[in-house]
């Protein structure tokens, strides 16, 4: 049974939407969390653990995406990364805000791949500064990712400049640009595959 078959679907009230949005927050956090498992299974050389934050913004609005993303980092801080890593939650809040800005501007749309890629690249580049800040505060500006590629970029930049903060920023640039672009693209693709009854935000178009 579906809307297409002629069944009348009553619009959901504001109260029902609020409950759904609250229930969606942990789903977003869990989707970000389990993305690591799918990345491992499919052997993708990326993190992609912010895609669900962007997806939450598209589906249910800024606050749902931001809270879901922030909650994901709280869970990671309590389980794998330790206390200092909770500040990474602000990166997810930033991702939510910038996704919301681009979504409202109509750039987060699979039918506009040029704008979508540009939005991803801008998100990734601006995010490198926040990542570097967290890396310095929480990890002593050491090479944090267990990736030989990122470590090689870090070693090259450190060798060239002798500056650990710059090396940390360079290794972020090497990954964040494509990682955030792909993550935003995935969020847009998955949101476009979703039946309209699940979309709790007003369309921008």
């Amino acid at each position, binding site marked *: 049974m579906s809307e297409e078959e002629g069944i009348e679907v009553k619009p959901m009230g504001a109260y029902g939407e609020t409950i759904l949005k609250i229930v969606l927050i*942990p789903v977003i956090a869990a989707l970000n969390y*389990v993305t690591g498992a799918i990345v491992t299974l499919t052997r993708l050389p990326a993190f992609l653990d912010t895609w669900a934050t962007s997806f939450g913004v598209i589906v249910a609005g800024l606050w749902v995406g931001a809270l879901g993303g922030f909650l994901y980092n709280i869970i990671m801080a309590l389980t*794998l990364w330790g*206390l200092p890593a909770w500040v990474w939650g602000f990166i997810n809040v930033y991702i939510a805000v910038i996704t919301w800005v681009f979504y409202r501007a109509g750039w987060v749309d699979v039918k506009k791949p040029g704008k979508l890629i540009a939005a991803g690249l801008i998100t990734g580049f601006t995010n490198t500064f926040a990542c570097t800040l967290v890396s310095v505060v929480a990890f*002593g500006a*050491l090479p944090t990712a267990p990736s030989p590629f990122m470590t090689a970029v870090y070693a090259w930049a450190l060798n060239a400049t002798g*500056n650990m903060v710059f090396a940390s920023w360079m290794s972020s640039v090497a990954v964040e640009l494509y990682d955030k672009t792909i993550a935003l693209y995935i969020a847009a693709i998955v949101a476009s595959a979703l039946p309209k009854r699940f979309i709790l935000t007003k369309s921008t178009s």
Partner: protein
Amino acid sequence: MSSLIQLGYEEKDSWVHKLDPRTKFILFIWASIFNYIFYDIYISLAFLISLIVLTVVGKVAKRILKIISIVLIPFYVLSTLVIALPIGFPYNKTPLFSFTVFGFGVTFYLEGAAYVAIWTLRLAITMTSALLFFLTSNPARITTILLKLRIPYKYIYALLSVFQLIPIMQRRIQVIYQAQVSRGLNVNVGLFKRLKNFLAILIPLTLGSMSDLQLRAIALESRGFSAPVRKTFIIRSDLTKSDYVILSVMVALSALFIYWITTIGLIVFMKGIPYIRPAG
């Protein structure tokens, strides 16, 4: 990495499990803060050993040590190779040892090795104390405490339900993956195809989760999720004598640490190694 962890509290009969979650959470914050203040391997080691003793008493040592080693050994090895070797760490001055690789002399430096060791220990301590709290604290007791602190129930639900959702989703990923493999999904392909494989798993997982959303919302409402009434508690959580002992030890040690910081500095026992800030 996130797939490595077996999430969740396990009911066990131990002294650590009986401690109030508030005590363990304060221990987690307290240990993390002081370790990020001191720049001393000996103090960090003393913290780590004490925490490991608590994990043994709490019967969660095996799980925690497995997680810590999986996360921190690659971090330690890669960081040491970059920082302790003469690649560019500007504070390297004192040769620790040298060896020859393919005819090239390679020297490890004390300053770089100590810097990586201290940061790795800091991370080990904060992770161990976080996991000790998380794996030995009953979620029902945490809920009771958070409600007592007047945190709205909807936020408590959001926090605690993630831990139920993650294992459900992890099982679903396996089911979807097996189904996709039976339809010819191949992981030994190029980057673009791997991205398509990723979506082939992610889209069914997300659609399934969104379908569950409405069911979950209805189920919650049917049990008065947002009813404007005062929630009652099945489980009580009160501080015991053991909690007061742990809290008193933390207060006494804090006084000692503050005394050391004001009289000796941030390096108390470790001699001959300069204090190094990441930003120089």
